[in-house]
């Protein structure tokens, strides 16, 4: 693998869930010729994870972040599109490829209280991936790993069980478990959201340090913009299954383009009661992912609502520098397409930045 080849690429990846559950509904759908209603949890999503890069994904609860992660992990089959790991599509994976993939891509779950088997001691929890992949190890390897995630003295922790550990310690064990097989990619599913704030900072620092130490790339998803901006090189803002804006962390924070991103950044709490702040301009709740409106998914809450929003916006580069993209009608010239308003904008037309 060449050094500049991306580790992981998602190309217009979809994950839809059928809502049909009962036999009667299935019959009804067949008789009336309707397709089953779909939950478009992840829709037409592109992402490229370079080596040693930390990509952040941020969005409200229910916007499809976790589905995205689980689909990448291969726990769900993608409905459409392509996932490429080190240049090879996962749809072409054989059994051996999958095993290799499982070794090289590790996941850290949101809830440390449930992601460790209560019947496994710390030693066995960390050794399990090694045993599954037939990698030789001995006790000192595991102690070394424990020390790296800051659980010292390791000899004291090694024989403990999850119920003897605090939330932060559990999450450290989960991180050690993820790193022990020397992976290429770590998928982190809000690893700090269940912890209190001081522990959150420690875990974030740890992840930050370890990803550079081990040379691991990471996809970090969260609903908390402050943690994402702390750890990520690039941020993807997700809204109802789609990425609405993607930019380098500092750029996104200082100069958000998409109305949704703006609202998100305005809503970061500032710990000063006298601070006079602009109120977030959006209200309401995220739409229903089953009966999605046509066009832009954010239009029902958008303060900048225009007629053209009934069409699906393209990803455009607002600055023309090729560094960031935003899916909003505000940032490109509609002359070319609005001439005929009846014709919906094709979703995959090549973009023409103004």
């Amino acid at each position, binding site marked *: 693998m060449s050094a500049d080849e991306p580790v992981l690429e998602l190309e217009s990846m979809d994950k839809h869930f059928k809502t049909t559950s009962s036999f009667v509904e299935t019959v009804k759908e067949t008789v009336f010729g309707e397709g089953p209603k779909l939950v478009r949890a992840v829709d037409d999503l592109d992402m490229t994870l370079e080596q040693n890069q930390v990509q952040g994904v941020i969005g409200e609860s229910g916007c499809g972040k976790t589905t995205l992660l689980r689909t990448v992990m291969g726990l769900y089959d993608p409905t459409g599109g392509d996932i490429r790991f080190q240049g090879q599509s996962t749809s072409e994976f054989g059994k051996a490829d999958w095993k290799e993939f499982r070794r090289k891509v590790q996941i850290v779950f949101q809830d440390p209280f449930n*992601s460790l088997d209560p019947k496994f001691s710390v030693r066995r929890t960390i050794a399990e991936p090694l045993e599954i992949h037939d990698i030789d190890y001995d006790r000192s390897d595991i102690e070394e790993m424990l020390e790296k995630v800051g659980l010292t003295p390791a000899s004291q922790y090694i024989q403990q069980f999850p119920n003897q550990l605090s939330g932060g310690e559990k999450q450290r064990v989960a991180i050690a478990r993820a790193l022990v097989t020397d992976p290429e990619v770590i998928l982190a599913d809000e690893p700090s959201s269940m912890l209190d704030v001081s522990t959150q900072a420690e875990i974030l620092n740890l992840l930050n340090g370890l990803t550079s130490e081990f040379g691991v790339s990471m996809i970090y998803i969260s609903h908390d913009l402050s943690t994402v901006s702390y750890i990520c090189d690039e941020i993807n803002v997700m809204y109802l299954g789609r990425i609405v804006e993607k930019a380098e962390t500092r750029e996104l924070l200082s100069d958000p383009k998409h109305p949704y991103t703006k609202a998100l950044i305005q809503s970061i709490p500032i710990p000063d009661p006298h601070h006079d702040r602009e109120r977030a301009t959006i209200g309401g709740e995220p739409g229903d992912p089953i009966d999605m409106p046509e066009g832009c998914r954010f239009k029902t809450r958008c303060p900048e609502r225009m007629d053209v929003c009934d069409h699906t916006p393209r990803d455009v580069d607002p600055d023309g520098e090729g560094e960031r993209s935003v899916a909003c009608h505000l940032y490109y010239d509609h002359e070319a397409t609005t001439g005929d308003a009846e014709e919906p904008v094709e979703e995959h037309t090549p973009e023409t930045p103004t």
Partner: protein
Amino acid sequence: MSIADKVHAYRNSDLAIIARRALENLLEERITRVAFVILAIILLMGLIGPAIAPYSYNTQQTTDDGDLMRYAEPSLEHPLGTNDRGEDVLSRLLYGARATLITGLLAGGLMMTIGLTVGMTAGYVGGRTESFLMRFVDFMYGIPFIPFAIVLITFFGAGFYTTVAILGLVLWRFIARVIRSQVLQINQRPYIMAARATGASTPWIMRKHILPNIANMAALFFAMGVGLAILEQAGLSFIGVTDPFTPTWGIMIRNANQAGRIAEAWWWTFPPGIMIALTVLSLYLLGRGYEGSSDDEVVV
């Protein structure tokens, strides 16, 4: 090799720690401890009972004059008196402990084996297999036990082990249901997903994650299965469809009933009745203790 040995030793200690902790949790409450001690005593009775019994269970006792000692009241010589045929009740009780426990443990073991296999397969495999297995369990639930047992015994003959087999082959149904629900529940836990994401195979997950996590529940339901088997065996004995020559506690009560002396010869009927009640009660108290010490609900 030494590394493998070491690894093995650690795993053993892991297991030891888990087992010790489970027992400690269970024995937190006093009433559970009492039940535990009673069960230990009963188990001991079953082990060494026949050895310490003063007489053989079917020797007919005679007085010094050579008369048959029928319905003798408790005395120093016969602490629990004698029965209608002049047999020593205490000796029969001690011999009966072994027969009763063998019934309970064998039938319980059989129930556990079938129940665990069916429950785990249904819970983990899911789909059509699950539907088929669980409808079969429903069908088993539909069978009224005592009449069904009578029919089977008229077919196969009233042997001691026939009864054990019938108990085991019918009563596993509740274990299958509970184990299935446990497997379904544990299967949804994030640590199973974590193991799967690391590349663990299905047999690996079953063996290393699901089985250890339902082990407590399985052990408990084994205990309750033993209790149920003892109770049902006593019932079958009482209506006279088991081997009448093996002196289980149920048979002792039946004999007293047949002799029409249940009320008068209290020393004959009380001890086996109390023993059955104590055994079953203690086993169920163990279940209650488990329910108190964990968040799992024991539903029978």
